[in-house]
């Protein structure tokens, strides 16, 4: 355990200039808010793209007013072309996976709250931290810029399978400059994540305050720590992949393109590359990425739920070990994306077993949540509603994993809407619910004002029911053989499925509209919300012990706190009520002993 209160190292004075305070800030809290802002912009862009796709899928060739303004080539007469559909789809997925699901729960909340939860005044490398945000911001700008190049963004999907992604312009619209911008953006994004992960790991290991043992870290801090270990290894594999992909475009190399390919009757000037190599590199990152998106959500939801339940989890340790097991196993299961890819069919079996085994730690996490709800004194508020919604979504998205873990069933479900339904529920919607739970929970600390609970609850109900209406039917479509990444359904057997697509489109439009209630609540409360008390939820961890709300520049004022308790001492009898704060020296009978 490290005693940072004795020799606090990072005394930087609060900045005074606007640029240093709000733009190129070294303060982890400002950087966290910047990440949140970036994710907020990204999520609305991504959502509008999904609306456009959904309208097109429900009513193909229906003109969408104003669409030609976005791209005159992509939507002549406001009707989306097949290639423009794929370009929007690729951008939707890339924006959502990288700039929302990775950025918000991990980089935004983690930056803001990890140093405070461990009792530090900042991260150990504030300049790296500042760089990590601005590098990520640059990545976003580079990605969006591909909308404005002549033939638009890449249409190759967020997985960018080679050789379509590597042969250049001949592959189709957006496969030249669009792919280079995509790969550059993602490569840059990786740098940001590597810098961020380095900071998260060192913050957790080196900057814990006096009394803060590893096991006294809140579950959210543990989740960010585990995620940063994954980030450091997964993004380190994706980045070279992106560099090699760019080289195939600009340097005449053939890492991912084999010989003798003929496109438009032209023999391509490549030889010796491997298309499966890209898939291995991509999915070695891609599957851990799923957990990079969801583990912070697990941590946030556990943290929020414990406060709402007024009790610690049945076992703090088991939850931590399970999240750790998920992280380790996530590297061994990536081949389940490639069962029918043409890799050795024996490998498919080798990847199938760890994929089935990973359901065990996932189940343990869910059972610990359920088991801890038993006998709790659950307080219902918007944050806890979203936390409960997360559990429901995680279960729904998780069970479909049983199907996709098996190569024989994957023969039928691979590349269908079943897969789309599965990952949207388990890593998309569930992670979003984690972000919402975190937002409603921590907003008072971040901005010193309360969010509107009534609007929050309306937002929850519309989103919870809406998300199920959108994503459950995806599974049915997939079971009927509906292939994904089609801009229209021309196959005979898909004709009867079109009404289901229309239902989903209506649900997506309405659920999307409900998100503007959230945006309004966020903006309005930021300036005109009720002033927040220091500890509105009667919570125990260190972020609620800061001398002011929002916390001062160095988080804890003159003296770093000392920690006397496990993180979740609820259901005890203390002078403050049924909880005792980590930084309070008051002696109480431990909730763990009593439990």
């Amino acid at each position, binding site marked *: 355990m490290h005693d940072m209160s004795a020799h606090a190292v990072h005394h930087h004075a609060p900045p005074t200039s606007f640029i240093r305070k709000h733009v190129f800030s070294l303060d982890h809290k400002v950087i966290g808010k910047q990440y949140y802002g970036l994710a907020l912009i990204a999520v609305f862009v991504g959502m509008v793209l999904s609306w456009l796709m959904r309208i097109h899928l429900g009513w193909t060739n229906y003109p969408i007013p104003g669409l030609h303004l976005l791209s005159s080539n992509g939507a002549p007469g406001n009707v989306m072309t097949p290639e423009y559909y794929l370009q929007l789809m690729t951008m939707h997925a890339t924006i959502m996976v990288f700039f929302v699901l990775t950025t918000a729960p991990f980089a935004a909340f983690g930056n803001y709250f990890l140093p405070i939860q461990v009792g530090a005044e900042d991260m150990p490398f504030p300049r790296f931290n500042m760089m990590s945000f601005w590098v990520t911001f640059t990545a976003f700008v580079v990605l969006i810029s591909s909308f404005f190049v002549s033939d638009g963004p890449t249409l190759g999907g967020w997985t960018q399978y080679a050789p379509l992604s590597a042969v250049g312009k001949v592959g189709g619209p957006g496969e030249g400059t669009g792919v280079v911008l995509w790969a550059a953006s993602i490569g840059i994004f990786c740098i940001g994540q590597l810098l961020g992960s380095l900071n998260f790991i060192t913050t957790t290991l080196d900057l814990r305050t006096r009394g803060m043992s590893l096991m006294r870290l809140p579950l959210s801090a543990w989740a960010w720590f585990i995620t940063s270990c994954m980030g450091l290894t997964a993004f380190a594999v994706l980045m070279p992949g992106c560099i090699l992909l760019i080289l195939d475009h600009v340097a005449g190399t053939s890492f991912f393109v084999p010989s003798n390919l003929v496109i438009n009757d032209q023999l391509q000037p490549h030889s010796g590359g491997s298309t499966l190599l890209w898939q291995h590199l991509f999915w070695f990152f891609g599957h851990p990425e799923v957990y990079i998106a969801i583990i912070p959500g697990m941590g946030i939801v556990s943290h929020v739920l414990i406060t709402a339940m007024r009790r610690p989890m049945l076992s703090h340790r088991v939850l931590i070990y399970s999240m750790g097991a998920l992280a380790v196993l996530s590297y061994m299961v990536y081949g389940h994306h490639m069962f029918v890819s043409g890799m050795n069919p024996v490998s498919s079996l080798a990847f199938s077993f760890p994929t*089935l085994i990973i359901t065990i730690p996932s189940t343990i996490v869910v059972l610990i949540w359920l088991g801890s709800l038993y006998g709790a004194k659950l307080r219902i508020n918007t944050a806890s509603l979203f936390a409960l919604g997360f559990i429901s979504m995680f279960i729904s998205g998780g069970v479909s994993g049983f199907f996709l873990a098996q190569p024989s069933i994957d023969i039928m479900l691979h590349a269908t809407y079943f897969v789309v339904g599965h990952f949207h529920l388990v890593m998309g919607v569930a992670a979003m619910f984690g972000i919402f739970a975190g937002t409603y929970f921590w907003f008072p600390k971040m901005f010193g004002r309360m969010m509107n609970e009534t609007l929050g609850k309306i937002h929850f109900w519309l989103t919870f029911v809406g998300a199920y209406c959108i994503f459950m039917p995806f599974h049915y479509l997939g079971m009927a053989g509906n*292939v994904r990444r089609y801009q229209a359904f021309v196959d005979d057997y898909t004709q009867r499925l079109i009404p289901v697509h229309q239902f989903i489109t209506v649900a997506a439009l309405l659920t999307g509209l409900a998100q503007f209630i959230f945006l309004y609540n966020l903006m309005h409360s930021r300036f005109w919300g009720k002033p927040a008390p220091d500890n509105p939820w009667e919570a125990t961890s260190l972020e609620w012990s800061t001398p002011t709300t929002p916390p001062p520049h160095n988080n804890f004022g003159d003296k770093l706190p000392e920690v006397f308790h496990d993180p979740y001492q609820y259901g005890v009898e203390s002078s403050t009520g049924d909880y005792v704060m980590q930084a309070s020296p008051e002696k109480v009978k431990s909730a763990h002993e009593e439990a």
Partner: protein
Amino acid sequence: MGKFVAVTIIVIAVASAIPIVMHTWEPPADISTHGALIDEQMSETMAEAGISFLASQILLAIFIWMFSSPKPGSRIKRLPGGAKGLVIAAFLLVGAEALALGVFGVKAWANVYLTPPSANAMPIQVQAGQFAFYFRYPGPDGKFGPLHPDLINEGTQNFFGLDQDHDPDSKDDIVTAEMAIPVNREIHLLMHSKDVGHSFFVPELRVQQDFVPGLDVSLHFTATKVGRYEIVCTQLCGLGHYNMKAYLSVYSQEDFDNWLKKEAAMQ
């Protein structure tokens, strides 16, 4: 509000299960010799996943119902068995479930992928390219002529890049845009891509396999029912991906022979 959440979760869980139980959206009926094993595996998985889904959602709902409006002064209760009980339950129940599915699943997978095609399986070559499939039959000599990618020319309809003037084995090869096979005869499909990644998916046949540019991939199956089915591409291959398909006709042996003769005459 807690009770309302509980009821909503149960309504959603039950409503989600109804189309499954009613078999509203099913894959098209199987027409292959190996498909029954896959279908069986699918329904077993559905039963296990369905029970897990309903049980966990209902348990979640019940606990929210029970514990969201605590009486003032009530104490926190602890689940009998605690975390240890849950961990053991997860290992036993889910571990057994996963192991069972994994072990039985091997059989269905092995049937398609780990057994070689029989010696008298009928070879057909399929080539995928943006955005069409082409098929090649070896003709009376039973031999496929070599491919010359530099000779590929859509204008002259030399889709495979055959040199029929110089390669004797190519002379009698029959190239078609539609796939036809005889019923109840094992087919050995030799797959290659001309340009980018594609996939060969016939839901009725219970086969799906990617084309890997630069690699020759093979697949074998036997169709058991005469009819006309769709072959669709499931690997994103460019702007025409959604429209990349071909038809598969399963004929009686006699009808197949006639079809092949007709196609040979048209070369």
